[in-house]
C-alpha cells in the first residue's frame, strides 16, 4: 500500500520515483489503489 505520512511528506514528491520501481501495471495498480480499497473496505462506504 501507498502512504505518505502527510504533512511530513507530500504525495507529489513520493510519487516522483514511482516509475523507476518498474513494478508493472498490475502491481502498480494494486500498490497505489486496489490493496488499500480491499483491506480497508473503502468501496462499501456510504
Amino acid at each position, binding site marked *: 500500500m501507498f*502512504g*505518505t505520512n*502527510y504533512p511530513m511528506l507530500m504525495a507529489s514528491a513520493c510519487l516522483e520515483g514511482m516509475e523507476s520501481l518498474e513494478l508493472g501495471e498490475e502491481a502498480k495498480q494494486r500498490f497505489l489503489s486496489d490493496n488499500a480499497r480491499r483491506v480497508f473496505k473503502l468501496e462499501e462506504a456510504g
Partner: protein
Amino acid sequence: MRIVDVWMQHPTRRFLEQPFFESLRRWTRQDSIPEVPLSLTIETMDRAGVEVGLVAAWWGPQGALIDNDEVASFVRQQPHRLFGVASVDLTRPMEAVRELRRCVRELGFRGLRIAPWLWGQTSSSSCEGAAPGR
C-alpha cells in the same frame, strides 16, 4: 489511476506545535503556527492525483494531538475523499478498546494506528510492553 494514500494526518495546531516539526517551521520560516484549513489538504491530494486519503488521529503519551472526534469531523466534511483511522491511549487498554469500538461503530473508522516509537517501543515489542510499570 485512483490513488489511495493510507497514511496521512490532517494537522491540528496542537499537532504542528510538536518539537518534531521544528525543523519544518525553520525551513518554511514560520514563527507562528498557522491553522491548516481542510481545503489545503484536499488541494495537496488533488495536485498529486490522490483520490482518497486515510487520515489518522494522533494519540501519544502527551495526550491527543489530533483526537478521534476531530478526525470524524474532517471525514464528515469530505466524505468522498477521506476515511478515518483511530488512535488510542495505549497505557489505558480497557478504555482504548472501548474508544476503538466507538470509532468503528459510531464514527465509521476503517482502522487503528499504533506508532510504537511514540510510546518508546520498538515495532517488535508486545502490547504488554506499553503498559506502565512493565
